[in-house]
Protein backbone atom coordinates (compact mmCIF):
# COMPACT_ATOMS: atom_id res chain seq x y z
CA UNK A 1 0.00 0.00 0.00
CA UNK A 2 2.09 2.86 -1.24
CA UNK A 3 1.19 6.54 -1.38
CA UNK A 4 -0.97 8.12 1.28
CA UNK A 5 -1.21 6.51 4.67
CA UNK A 6 -4.46 4.82 5.62
CA UNK A 7 -7.12 7.28 6.69
CA UNK A 8 -6.94 6.19 10.31
CA UNK A 9 -3.49 7.73 10.46
CA UNK A 10 -4.40 10.99 8.82
CA UNK A 11 -4.93 14.31 10.59
CA UNK A 12 -8.53 14.88 11.57
CA UNK A 13 -9.24 17.39 8.80
CA UNK A 14 -8.02 15.03 6.09
CA UNK A 15 -9.95 12.17 7.63
CA UNK A 16 -13.14 14.21 7.61
CA UNK A 17 -12.68 15.02 3.96
CA UNK A 18 -12.14 11.39 3.14
CA UNK A 19 -15.14 10.25 5.10
CA UNK A 20 -17.45 12.72 3.40
CA UNK A 21 -19.25 11.63 0.26
CA UNK A 22 -17.19 11.75 -2.89
CA UNK A 23 -17.32 14.61 -5.40
CA UNK A 24 -17.62 14.23 -9.15
CA UNK A 25 -13.86 13.70 -9.61
CA UNK A 26 -13.66 10.99 -7.02
CA UNK A 27 -16.73 9.31 -8.50
CA UNK A 28 -14.98 9.22 -11.84
CA UNK A 29 -11.91 7.73 -10.21
CA UNK A 30 -14.07 5.22 -8.35
CA UNK A 31 -15.65 4.06 -11.61
CA UNK A 32 -12.21 3.61 -13.09
CA UNK A 33 -11.09 1.56 -10.10
CA UNK A 34 -14.16 -0.65 -10.23
CA UNK A 35 -13.59 -1.24 -13.94
CA UNK A 36 -9.98 -2.25 -13.29
CA UNK A 37 -10.97 -4.54 -10.43
CA UNK A 38 -13.45 -6.19 -12.78
CA UNK A 39 -10.48 -6.82 -15.07
CA UNK A 40 -8.65 -8.46 -12.21
CA UNK A 41 -6.33 -5.67 -11.07
CA UNK A 42 -5.10 -6.19 -7.53
CA UNK A 43 -3.59 -2.70 -7.56
CA UNK A 44 -7.01 -1.16 -8.24
CA UNK A 45 -8.57 -3.30 -5.55
CA UNK A 46 -5.89 -2.15 -3.16
CA UNK A 47 -6.69 1.48 -3.95
CA UNK A 48 -10.41 0.87 -3.51
CA UNK A 49 -9.69 -0.90 -0.23
CA UNK A 50 -7.51 1.98 0.97
CA UNK A 51 -10.26 4.48 0.14
CA UNK A 52 -13.20 2.54 1.52
CA UNK A 53 -11.83 0.57 4.47
CA UNK A 54 -11.80 3.51 6.95
CA UNK A 55 -15.42 4.33 6.16
CA UNK A 56 -16.55 0.72 6.28
CA UNK A 57 -14.76 -0.06 9.53
CA UNK A 58 -15.86 3.19 11.18
CA UNK A 59 -19.49 2.73 10.18
CA UNK A 60 -19.49 -0.86 11.45
CA UNK A 61 -17.76 0.09 14.68
CA UNK A 62 -20.14 2.93 15.43
CA UNK A 63 -23.09 0.56 15.10
CA UNK A 64 -21.73 -2.54 16.86
CA UNK A 65 -19.23 -0.89 19.26
CA UNK A 66 -16.94 -3.89 19.06
CA UNK A 67 -13.62 -3.83 17.22
CA UNK A 68 -13.57 -7.54 16.31
CA UNK A 69 -17.12 -7.48 15.02
CA UNK A 70 -16.45 -4.29 13.08
CA UNK A 71 -13.46 -5.93 11.44
CA UNK A 72 -15.56 -8.95 10.49
CA UNK A 73 -18.33 -6.81 9.08
CA UNK A 74 -16.06 -4.56 7.05
CA UNK A 75 -14.11 -7.54 5.76
CA UNK A 76 -17.27 -9.41 4.81
CA UNK A 77 -18.52 -6.36 2.97
CA UNK A 78 -15.33 -6.25 0.91
CA UNK A 79 -15.47 -9.97 0.24
CA UNK A 80 -19.07 -9.59 -0.92
CA UNK A 81 -18.03 -6.70 -3.12
CA UNK A 82 -15.20 -8.64 -4.72
CA UNK A 83 -17.38 -11.66 -5.37
CA UNK A 84 -20.10 -9.54 -6.94
CA UNK A 85 -17.82 -7.11 -8.72
CA UNK A 86 -18.45 -8.62 -12.16
CA UNK A 87 -22.14 -7.92 -11.82
CA UNK A 88 -21.64 -4.44 -10.44
CA UNK A 89 -23.15 -1.65 -12.54
CA UNK A 90 -20.38 0.94 -12.86
CA UNK A 91 -22.89 3.72 -13.48
CA UNK A 92 -23.86 3.43 -9.85
CA UNK A 93 -21.59 4.67 -7.07
CA UNK A 94 -19.64 1.96 -5.30
CA UNK A 95 -19.45 3.63 -1.89
CA UNK A 96 -23.18 3.74 -1.08
CA UNK A 97 -23.52 0.12 -2.10
CA UNK A 98 -20.77 -0.81 0.32
CA UNK A 99 -22.15 1.41 3.08
CA UNK A 100 -25.55 -0.21 2.78
CA UNK A 101 -24.04 -3.69 3.14
CA UNK A 102 -21.97 -2.63 6.12
CA UNK A 103 -24.71 -0.87 8.03
CA UNK A 104 -27.35 -3.54 7.45
CA UNK A 105 -24.90 -6.25 8.43
CA UNK A 106 -23.96 -4.32 11.56
CA UNK A 107 -27.62 -4.08 12.53
CA UNK A 108 -27.97 -7.85 11.95
CA UNK A 109 -24.97 -8.60 14.15
CA UNK A 110 -26.24 -6.42 16.96
CA UNK A 111 -29.68 -8.00 16.76
CA UNK A 112 -28.21 -11.51 16.65
CA UNK A 113 -26.29 -10.82 19.84
CA UNK A 114 -29.43 -9.59 21.54
CA UNK A 115 -31.28 -12.64 20.27
CA UNK A 116 -28.66 -15.05 21.53
CA UNK A 117 -28.85 -13.47 24.95
CA UNK A 118 -32.63 -13.57 24.82
CA UNK A 119 -32.74 -17.23 23.84
CA UNK A 120 -30.13 -18.22 26.40
CA UNK A 121 -31.99 -16.33 29.04
CA UNK A 122 -35.24 -18.05 28.12
CA UNK A 123 -33.59 -21.43 28.36
CA UNK A 124 -32.29 -20.57 31.77
CA UNK A 125 -35.75 -19.35 32.74
CA UNK A 126 -34.30 -16.01 33.56
CA UNK A 127 -36.77 -13.16 33.85
CA UNK A 128 -34.86 -10.58 31.86
CA UNK A 129 -32.11 -10.43 29.30
CA UNK A 130 -29.09 -8.47 30.48
CA UNK A 131 -28.49 -5.04 28.94
CA UNK A 132 -26.21 -4.71 25.93
CA UNK A 133 -22.58 -5.02 26.93
CA UNK A 134 -20.63 -1.91 26.04
CA UNK A 135 -17.99 -3.84 24.08
CA UNK A 136 -14.84 -1.77 24.09
CA UNK A 137 -16.20 1.68 24.86
CA UNK A 138 -14.26 4.70 23.77
CA UNK A 139 -13.55 7.58 26.01
CA UNK A 140 -15.15 10.01 23.59
CA UNK A 141 -18.46 11.11 25.06
CA UNK A 142 -20.47 11.23 21.83
CA UNK A 143 -19.26 7.89 20.58
CA UNK A 144 -19.96 6.38 23.99
CA UNK A 145 -23.38 8.00 24.10
CA UNK A 146 -24.11 6.44 20.74
CA UNK A 147 -23.77 3.02 22.34
CA UNK A 148 -26.81 3.78 24.51
CA UNK A 149 -29.01 3.97 21.42
CA UNK A 150 -30.51 0.98 19.64
CA UNK A 151 -28.67 -0.44 16.62
CA UNK A 152 -31.31 1.00 14.31
CA UNK A 153 -30.88 4.48 15.79
CA UNK A 154 -27.11 4.23 15.57
CA UNK A 155 -27.34 3.17 11.94
CA UNK A 156 -29.43 6.18 11.05
CA UNK A 157 -26.99 8.52 12.79
CA UNK A 158 -24.02 6.90 11.08
CA UNK A 159 -25.56 7.17 7.62
CA UNK A 160 -26.58 10.77 8.19
CA UNK A 161 -23.52 12.19 9.90
CA UNK A 162 -20.68 9.94 8.82
CA UNK A 163 -21.73 9.64 5.17
CA UNK A 164 -24.02 12.67 4.73
CA UNK A 165 -26.90 10.73 3.26
CA UNK A 166 -30.26 12.47 3.10
CA UNK A 167 -33.15 11.05 5.12
CA UNK A 168 -34.70 9.83 1.86
CA UNK A 169 -31.53 7.94 0.94
CA UNK A 170 -31.32 6.47 4.41
CA UNK A 171 -34.93 5.34 4.22
CA UNK A 172 -34.11 3.56 0.96
CA UNK A 173 -30.90 1.99 2.31
CA UNK A 174 -32.54 0.66 5.47
CA UNK A 175 -35.88 -0.12 3.88
CA UNK A 176 -37.92 1.95 6.29
CA UNK A 177 -40.32 4.90 5.97
CA UNK A 178 -38.79 8.33 5.73
CA UNK A 179 -40.81 9.50 8.72
CA UNK A 180 -39.22 6.77 10.81
CA UNK A 181 -35.78 7.93 9.74
CA UNK A 182 -36.60 11.50 10.72
CA UNK A 183 -38.01 10.54 14.10
CA UNK A 184 -35.04 8.29 14.87
CA UNK A 185 -32.64 11.01 13.88
CA UNK A 186 -34.42 13.52 16.05
CA UNK A 187 -34.48 11.23 19.06
CA UNK A 188 -30.86 10.18 18.61
CA UNK A 189 -29.67 13.74 18.20
CA UNK A 190 -31.51 14.86 21.31
CA UNK A 191 -29.67 12.21 23.28
CA UNK A 192 -26.29 13.01 21.75
CA UNK A 193 -26.70 16.78 22.21
CA UNK A 194 -27.51 16.27 25.85
CA UNK A 195 -24.17 14.56 26.17
CA UNK A 196 -22.28 17.24 24.26
CA UNK A 197 -23.81 20.12 26.22
CA UNK A 198 -23.30 18.45 29.57
Amino acid at each position, binding site marked *: *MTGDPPAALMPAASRSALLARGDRGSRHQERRLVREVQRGSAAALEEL*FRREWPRA*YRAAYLVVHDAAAAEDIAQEAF*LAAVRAIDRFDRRRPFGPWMHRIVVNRAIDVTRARSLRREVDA*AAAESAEAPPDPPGAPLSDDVVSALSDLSAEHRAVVVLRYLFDYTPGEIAHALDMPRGTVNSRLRRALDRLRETIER
Partner: protein
Amino acid sequence: MNPVRDRLRNQPLPGEAQAAARSWPVVEAALAEREPGHRRHGAAAHPRPLALRLALVAALIAAGLVVALSPAGAWIGDRFKDEPKKTTPAFAALPKGGSVLAISRTGAYALHTDGSSQRLGGFSEAGWSPHGEHVVGVHGRRLTAVDPLGTVKWTLVRRRVHDPAWSTGLGYAVAYLQGRALRVVDGQGDPATDRRIRRGAAPVTPAWRPRSDSVLTYATTGGALETVDVTTGRSLWRARAAESARALAWSRNGRRLVALSSHLVAVFDRTGQRLVTVELPGVARQLALHPSGKRAAVVVGDRALNVPLDGGQPTLLFQGNVDGLAWSADGRRLLLGWRDTDQWLLFGPGGRKRALHGVSRELGSAGGFPRVVGWCCLG
Protein backbone atom coordinates in the same frame (compact mmCIF):
# COMPACT_ATOMS: atom_id res chain seq x y z
CA MET B 1 -19.03 21.69 11.49
CA ASN B 2 -21.85 19.91 13.27
CA PRO B 3 -20.29 18.66 16.54
CA VAL B 4 -21.85 15.20 16.20
CA ARG B 5 -20.55 14.87 12.64
CA ASP B 6 -17.17 16.14 13.69
CA ARG B 7 -16.77 13.69 16.54
CA LEU B 8 -18.11 10.69 14.66
CA ARG B 9 -15.66 11.29 11.85
CA ASN B 10 -12.59 12.18 13.83
CA GLN B 11 -12.62 10.11 16.96
CA PRO B 12 -9.79 7.58 16.60
CA LEU B 13 -11.10 4.04 16.73
CA PRO B 14 -9.38 1.06 18.34
CA GLY B 15 -7.73 -1.43 16.04
CA GLU B 16 -8.61 0.23 12.75
CA ALA B 17 -5.22 0.04 11.05
CA GLN B 18 -4.46 -3.43 12.40
CA ALA B 19 -7.83 -4.62 11.19
CA ALA B 20 -7.04 -3.23 7.74
CA ALA B 21 -3.68 -5.00 7.73
CA ARG B 22 -5.33 -8.30 8.63
CA SER B 23 -8.19 -7.92 6.19
CA TRP B 24 -6.35 -6.82 3.08
CA PRO B 25 -4.73 -10.23 2.37
CA VAL B 26 -8.14 -11.89 2.73
CA VAL B 27 -9.76 -9.46 0.33
CA GLU B 28 -6.90 -9.72 -2.10
CA ALA B 29 -7.09 -13.51 -1.98
CA ALA B 30 -10.80 -13.32 -2.80
CA LEU B 31 -9.94 -11.48 -6.00
CA ALA B 32 -7.38 -14.12 -6.89
CA GLU B 33 -9.89 -16.90 -6.17
CA ARG B 34 -12.44 -15.63 -8.66
CA GLU B 35 -13.26 -18.08 -11.41
CA PRO B 36 -10.61 -18.18 -14.12
CA GLY B 37 -13.10 -16.85 -16.65
CA HIS B 38 -13.38 -13.68 -14.66
CA ARG B 39 -9.70 -12.94 -14.69
CA ARG B 40 -8.58 -10.56 -17.37
CA HIS B 41 -5.31 -10.02 -19.08
CA GLY B 42 -2.71 -7.31 -19.31
CA ALA B 43 -0.29 -5.82 -16.90
CA ALA B 44 -2.94 -4.63 -14.48
CA ALA B 45 -4.30 -8.12 -14.20
CA HIS B 46 -1.19 -9.50 -12.57
CA PRO B 47 -1.44 -9.13 -8.84
CA ARG B 48 1.70 -8.43 -6.90
CA PRO B 49 0.71 -9.89 -3.58
CA LEU B 50 4.07 -9.87 -1.87
CA ALA B 51 4.96 -6.38 -3.04
CA LEU B 52 1.55 -5.06 -2.11
CA ARG B 53 1.60 -6.60 1.30
CA LEU B 54 5.09 -5.36 1.97
CA ALA B 55 3.99 -1.91 0.86
CA LEU B 56 1.03 -2.10 3.21
CA VAL B 57 3.29 -2.86 6.12
CA ALA B 58 5.75 -0.18 5.05
CA ALA B 59 2.96 2.38 4.98
CA LEU B 60 1.80 1.41 8.41
CA ILE B 61 5.28 1.49 9.88
CA ALA B 62 6.12 4.78 8.16
CA ALA B 63 3.05 6.31 9.69
CA GLY B 64 4.40 5.59 13.13
CA LEU B 65 2.32 2.63 14.15
CA VAL B 66 3.85 0.17 16.51
CA VAL B 67 2.16 -2.63 14.71
CA ALA B 68 5.37 -4.58 14.51
CA LEU B 69 5.44 -4.87 18.26
CA SER B 70 1.85 -6.00 18.58
CA PRO B 71 0.59 -9.55 18.16
CA ALA B 72 -0.98 -8.47 14.88
CA GLY B 73 2.34 -7.05 13.76
CA ALA B 74 4.15 -10.18 14.73
CA TRP B 75 1.72 -12.13 12.62
CA ILE B 76 2.32 -9.87 9.64
CA GLY B 77 6.06 -10.35 9.96
CA ASP B 78 5.68 -14.11 10.07
CA ARG B 79 3.41 -14.12 7.12
CA PHE B 80 5.84 -12.29 4.87
CA LYS B 81 8.74 -14.40 5.93
CA ASP B 82 6.75 -17.46 5.04
CA GLU B 83 5.29 -16.12 1.83
CA PRO B 84 7.79 -17.45 -0.74
CA LYS B 85 7.70 -20.98 0.65
CA LYS B 86 5.46 -23.39 -1.15
CA THR B 87 4.42 -26.10 1.24
CA THR B 88 1.84 -28.85 1.05
CA PRO B 89 -1.54 -27.48 2.10
CA ALA B 90 -2.52 -28.63 5.59
CA PHE B 91 -5.84 -30.02 4.42
CA ALA B 92 -4.11 -32.33 1.95
CA ALA B 93 -3.43 -34.53 4.98
CA LEU B 94 -7.13 -35.32 5.27
CA PRO B 95 -7.98 -38.86 4.18
CA LYS B 96 -9.27 -39.20 0.64
CA GLY B 97 -12.96 -38.83 0.05
CA GLY B 98 -15.40 -36.52 1.72
CA SER B 99 -15.10 -32.91 2.74
CA VAL B 100 -14.87 -31.19 6.09
CA LEU B 101 -17.12 -28.27 6.95
CA ALA B 102 -15.53 -25.67 9.19
CA ILE B 103 -16.47 -22.24 10.46
CA SER B 104 -14.07 -19.42 11.13
CA ARG B 105 -14.54 -15.72 11.77
CA THR B 106 -14.84 -15.08 8.05
CA GLY B 107 -17.52 -17.69 7.46
CA ALA B 108 -18.00 -21.34 6.55
CA TYR B 109 -15.58 -23.31 4.38
CA ALA B 110 -15.64 -26.69 2.67
CA LEU B 111 -12.19 -28.24 2.95
CA HIS B 112 -11.20 -30.90 0.49
CA THR B 113 -8.66 -33.66 0.58
CA ASP B 114 -6.68 -32.19 -2.30
CA GLY B 115 -5.80 -29.40 0.13
CA SER B 116 -8.14 -26.86 -1.39
CA SER B 117 -10.74 -24.86 0.43
CA GLN B 118 -13.92 -23.22 -0.73
CA ARG B 119 -15.59 -20.40 1.15
CA LEU B 120 -19.31 -21.07 1.25
CA GLY B 121 -20.58 -17.86 2.81
CA GLY B 122 -20.30 -15.68 5.87
CA PHE B 123 -22.16 -18.22 7.98
CA SER B 124 -21.94 -18.32 11.74
CA GLU B 125 -23.65 -21.75 11.80
CA ALA B 126 -23.80 -24.36 9.06
CA GLY B 127 -24.50 -28.01 8.31
CA TRP B 128 -24.34 -30.46 5.41
CA SER B 129 -27.28 -31.79 3.46
CA PRO B 130 -27.46 -35.62 3.61
CA HIS B 131 -25.21 -36.36 0.63
CA GLY B 132 -22.97 -33.32 0.86
CA GLU B 133 -24.56 -31.69 -2.16
CA HIS B 134 -25.55 -28.60 -0.22
CA VAL B 135 -24.82 -26.71 2.95
CA VAL B 136 -27.40 -24.77 4.92
CA GLY B 137 -26.11 -21.85 6.92
CA VAL B 138 -27.16 -18.83 8.92
CA HIS B 139 -25.80 -15.39 8.20
CA GLY B 140 -27.50 -12.68 10.21
CA ARG B 141 -31.19 -12.90 9.39
CA ARG B 142 -30.60 -15.13 6.40
CA LEU B 143 -31.09 -18.86 6.23
CA THR B 144 -29.24 -19.82 3.08
CA ALA B 145 -28.56 -23.00 1.13
CA VAL B 146 -25.46 -23.12 -1.04
CA ASP B 147 -23.81 -25.76 -3.17
CA PRO B 148 -20.22 -26.85 -2.42
CA LEU B 149 -18.91 -24.03 -4.60
CA GLY B 150 -20.72 -21.47 -2.49
CA THR B 151 -23.37 -20.73 -5.11
CA VAL B 152 -26.52 -19.62 -3.36
CA LYS B 153 -29.48 -21.90 -4.08
CA TRP B 154 -32.04 -20.20 -1.91
CA THR B 155 -32.38 -17.80 0.96
CA LEU B 156 -35.09 -17.20 3.51
CA VAL B 157 -34.94 -13.97 5.46
CA ARG B 158 -36.20 -14.47 8.97
CA ARG B 159 -35.55 -12.57 12.14
CA ARG B 160 -33.80 -14.46 14.92
CA VAL B 161 -33.00 -17.49 12.78
CA HIS B 162 -30.53 -20.04 14.15
CA ASP B 163 -29.61 -23.73 14.48
CA PRO B 164 -30.45 -25.10 11.02
CA ALA B 165 -30.44 -28.84 10.23
CA TRP B 166 -31.01 -30.48 6.86
CA SER B 167 -33.12 -33.63 6.89
CA THR B 168 -31.28 -36.91 6.52
CA GLY B 169 -33.50 -38.80 4.05
CA LEU B 170 -33.72 -37.36 0.58
CA GLY B 171 -33.05 -33.90 1.86
CA TYR B 172 -36.61 -32.75 1.41
CA ALA B 173 -36.73 -30.59 4.53
CA VAL B 174 -34.68 -28.14 6.54
CA ALA B 175 -35.45 -27.54 10.21
CA TYR B 176 -34.40 -24.38 11.97
CA LEU B 177 -35.22 -22.31 14.99
CA GLN B 178 -36.67 -18.84 14.84
CA GLY B 179 -36.37 -17.40 18.30
CA ARG B 180 -38.04 -20.12 20.36
CA ALA B 181 -40.09 -21.58 17.51
CA LEU B 182 -39.18 -24.83 15.74
CA ARG B 183 -39.84 -24.39 12.03
CA VAL B 184 -39.42 -26.48 8.89
CA VAL B 185 -39.15 -25.45 5.24
CA ASP B 186 -38.79 -27.75 2.26
CA GLY B 187 -35.36 -28.46 0.81
CA GLN B 188 -35.99 -26.01 -2.02
CA GLY B 189 -36.45 -23.19 0.45
CA ASP B 190 -39.95 -22.50 -0.83
CA PRO B 191 -41.43 -19.89 1.56
CA ALA B 192 -44.89 -21.34 0.94
CA THR B 193 -43.79 -24.52 2.71
CA ASP B 194 -42.22 -22.73 5.67
CA ARG B 195 -44.21 -23.58 8.78
CA ARG B 196 -43.97 -23.55 12.53
CA ILE B 197 -43.94 -27.00 14.09
CA ARG B 198 -43.69 -26.15 17.77
CA ARG B 199 -43.31 -23.20 20.10
CA GLY B 200 -40.99 -23.37 23.08
CA ALA B 201 -37.84 -24.82 21.47
CA ALA B 202 -34.55 -24.43 23.31
CA PRO B 203 -31.51 -23.11 21.38
CA VAL B 204 -30.20 -26.56 20.41
CA THR B 205 -29.81 -27.74 16.83
CA PRO B 206 -32.66 -30.22 16.16
CA ALA B 207 -31.69 -33.75 15.11
CA TRP B 208 -33.41 -35.59 12.24
CA ARG B 209 -33.76 -39.34 12.65
CA PRO B 210 -31.45 -40.99 10.08
CA ARG B 211 -32.81 -41.45 6.58
CA SER B 212 -35.84 -39.40 7.48
CA ASP B 213 -37.44 -36.29 6.07
CA SER B 214 -40.18 -36.23 8.65
CA VAL B 215 -39.06 -37.41 12.10
CA LEU B 216 -37.27 -34.77 14.10
CA THR B 217 -36.16 -34.46 17.72
CA TYR B 218 -35.75 -31.13 19.44
CA ALA B 219 -35.19 -29.84 22.98
CA THR B 220 -37.87 -27.81 24.67
CA THR B 221 -37.30 -24.73 26.79
CA GLY B 222 -38.76 -26.72 29.69
CA GLY B 223 -35.89 -29.21 29.54
CA ALA B 224 -37.69 -32.07 27.77
CA LEU B 225 -36.94 -33.81 24.50
CA GLU B 226 -39.70 -34.30 21.99
CA THR B 227 -39.72 -36.26 18.75
CA VAL B 228 -42.28 -35.08 16.24
CA ASP B 229 -43.48 -36.08 12.81
CA VAL B 230 -43.14 -32.75 11.02
CA THR B 231 -45.44 -33.87 8.21
CA THR B 232 -48.42 -34.44 10.49
CA GLY B 233 -47.30 -32.39 13.49
CA ARG B 234 -47.94 -35.44 15.70
CA SER B 235 -45.80 -35.99 18.78
CA LEU B 236 -44.14 -39.44 18.64
CA TRP B 237 -42.66 -39.30 22.10
CA ARG B 238 -41.62 -36.89 24.76
CA ALA B 239 -39.01 -37.56 27.44
CA ARG B 240 -37.87 -35.63 30.40
CA ALA B 241 -34.10 -35.04 30.48
CA ALA B 242 -32.25 -34.72 33.77
CA GLU B 243 -30.62 -31.53 32.53
CA SER B 244 -31.34 -29.20 29.62
CA ALA B 245 -29.78 -30.56 26.46
CA ARG B 246 -26.91 -28.80 24.72
CA ALA B 247 -26.58 -31.09 21.73
CA LEU B 248 -28.60 -33.90 20.14
CA ALA B 249 -27.57 -36.67 17.76
CA TRP B 250 -29.13 -39.83 16.37
CA SER B 251 -27.03 -42.93 15.72
CA ARG B 252 -26.79 -43.86 12.08
CA ASN B 253 -29.12 -46.86 12.45
CA GLY B 254 -31.74 -44.65 14.07
CA ARG B 255 -31.96 -46.81 17.17
CA ARG B 256 -30.36 -44.43 19.63
CA LEU B 257 -30.72 -40.77 20.39
CA VAL B 258 -27.94 -39.19 22.40
CA ALA B 259 -28.46 -35.97 24.33
CA LEU B 260 -25.54 -34.05 25.76
CA SER B 261 -26.21 -31.76 28.71
CA SER B 262 -23.79 -29.84 30.87
CA HIS B 263 -22.75 -32.83 33.01
CA LEU B 264 -24.42 -35.87 31.42
CA VAL B 265 -24.70 -37.91 28.29
CA ALA B 266 -28.13 -39.55 28.11
CA VAL B 267 -28.99 -42.31 25.65
CA PHE B 268 -32.60 -42.96 24.56
CA ASP B 269 -34.05 -45.67 22.37
CA ARG B 270 -36.23 -44.86 19.38
CA THR B 271 -39.34 -44.73 21.55
CA GLY B 272 -37.91 -42.28 24.06
CA GLN B 273 -37.02 -44.78 26.79
CA ARG B 274 -33.84 -43.79 28.56
CA LEU B 275 -31.27 -46.56 28.29
CA VAL B 276 -28.14 -45.13 29.82
CA THR B 277 -26.94 -42.01 31.60
CA VAL B 278 -23.23 -41.29 31.77
CA GLU B 279 -21.97 -38.70 34.20
CA LEU B 280 -19.21 -36.43 32.91
CA PRO B 281 -16.28 -35.15 34.99
CA GLY B 282 -16.81 -31.48 34.17
CA VAL B 283 -18.84 -29.12 32.02
CA ALA B 284 -19.47 -30.54 28.58
CA ARG B 285 -19.29 -28.31 25.52
CA GLN B 286 -19.43 -30.37 22.33
CA LEU B 287 -20.53 -33.81 21.17
CA ALA B 288 -19.60 -35.99 18.22
CA LEU B 289 -21.55 -39.25 18.19
CA HIS B 290 -19.77 -42.17 16.56
CA PRO B 291 -21.81 -43.43 13.58
CA SER B 292 -22.23 -46.79 15.34
CA GLY B 293 -24.00 -45.06 18.22
CA LYS B 294 -21.91 -47.08 20.66
CA ARG B 295 -19.62 -44.28 21.78
CA ALA B 296 -19.20 -40.56 21.55
CA ALA B 297 -16.39 -38.06 21.65
CA VAL B 298 -17.24 -35.28 24.06
CA VAL B 299 -15.37 -32.09 24.84
CA VAL B 300 -15.41 -31.55 28.59
CA GLY B 301 -13.53 -28.49 29.80
CA ASP B 302 -10.09 -28.65 28.20
CA ARG B 303 -10.27 -32.36 27.40
CA ALA B 304 -11.75 -34.57 24.74
CA LEU B 305 -13.18 -37.78 26.20
CA ASN B 306 -14.17 -41.06 24.66
CA VAL B 307 -17.53 -41.88 26.22
CA PRO B 308 -18.80 -45.47 25.87
CA LEU B 309 -22.58 -45.42 25.66
CA ASP B 310 -23.08 -48.77 27.36
CA GLY B 311 -22.55 -47.20 30.79
CA GLY B 312 -18.76 -47.61 30.90
CA GLN B 313 -16.46 -44.96 32.27
CA PRO B 314 -15.27 -42.14 29.98
CA THR B 315 -11.60 -42.26 29.06
CA LEU B 316 -9.25 -39.49 28.08
CA LEU B 317 -8.86 -39.07 24.36
CA PHE B 318 -6.92 -35.85 24.27
CA GLN B 319 -5.90 -33.11 26.68
CA GLY B 320 -5.97 -29.60 25.21
CA ASN B 321 -8.18 -26.69 24.26
CA VAL B 322 -10.34 -28.59 21.79
CA ASP B 323 -12.73 -26.62 19.63
CA GLY B 324 -14.75 -28.55 17.09
CA LEU B 325 -14.76 -32.26 16.37
CA ALA B 326 -16.33 -34.66 13.89
CA TRP B 327 -16.22 -38.34 12.98
CA SER B 328 -15.61 -39.40 9.42
CA ALA B 329 -18.66 -40.97 7.80
CA ASP B 330 -17.19 -44.47 8.16
CA GLY B 331 -16.38 -43.86 11.81
CA ARG B 332 -12.73 -44.81 11.37
CA ARG B 333 -11.32 -41.37 12.06
CA LEU B 334 -12.00 -38.53 14.43
CA LEU B 335 -10.96 -35.02 13.55
CA LEU B 336 -10.64 -32.47 16.31
CA GLY B 337 -9.42 -28.90 16.43
CA TRP B 338 -6.68 -27.92 18.86
CA ARG B 339 -7.07 -24.19 19.02
CA ASP B 340 -4.01 -23.36 21.14
CA THR B 341 -1.61 -24.71 18.55
CA ASP B 342 -3.59 -23.89 15.42
CA GLN B 343 -3.74 -27.57 14.50
CA TRP B 344 -6.30 -30.15 13.60
CA LEU B 345 -5.61 -33.62 14.91
CA LEU B 346 -6.67 -36.71 13.07
CA PHE B 347 -7.15 -39.82 15.19
CA GLY B 348 -7.11 -42.91 13.01
CA PRO B 349 -7.42 -46.67 13.42
CA GLY B 350 -5.00 -48.25 15.87
CA GLY B 351 -4.52 -45.04 17.83
CA ARG B 352 -2.61 -43.37 15.01
CA LYS B 353 -2.53 -39.58 15.25
CA ARG B 354 -1.72 -37.07 12.61
CA ALA B 355 -1.49 -33.29 12.94
CA LEU B 356 -2.56 -30.75 10.33
CA HIS B 357 -0.49 -27.68 11.13
CA GLY B 358 -1.28 -24.02 10.62
CA VAL B 359 -4.92 -24.53 9.68
CA SER B 360 -5.79 -20.85 10.24
CA ARG B 361 -3.38 -19.72 7.58
CA GLU B 362 -4.96 -21.98 5.02
CA LEU B 363 -8.07 -19.81 5.18
CA GLY B 364 -6.24 -16.50 5.54
CA SER B 365 -5.17 -15.72 9.04
CA ALA B 366 -7.76 -12.98 9.47
CA GLY B 367 -10.31 -15.75 9.59
CA GLY B 368 -8.95 -17.13 12.82
CA PHE B 369 -9.14 -20.75 13.86
CA PRO B 370 -11.50 -22.90 11.76
CA ARG B 371 -13.85 -24.91 13.98
CA VAL B 372 -14.75 -28.32 12.59
CA VAL B 373 -18.53 -28.68 12.40
CA GLY B 374 -19.05 -31.61 10.04
CA TRP B 375 -17.38 -34.24 7.88
CA CYS B 376 -19.42 -35.47 5.05
CA CYS B 377 -19.82 -38.41 2.85
CA LEU B 378 -16.61 -40.36 2.60
CA GLY B 379 -16.02 -41.92 -0.79
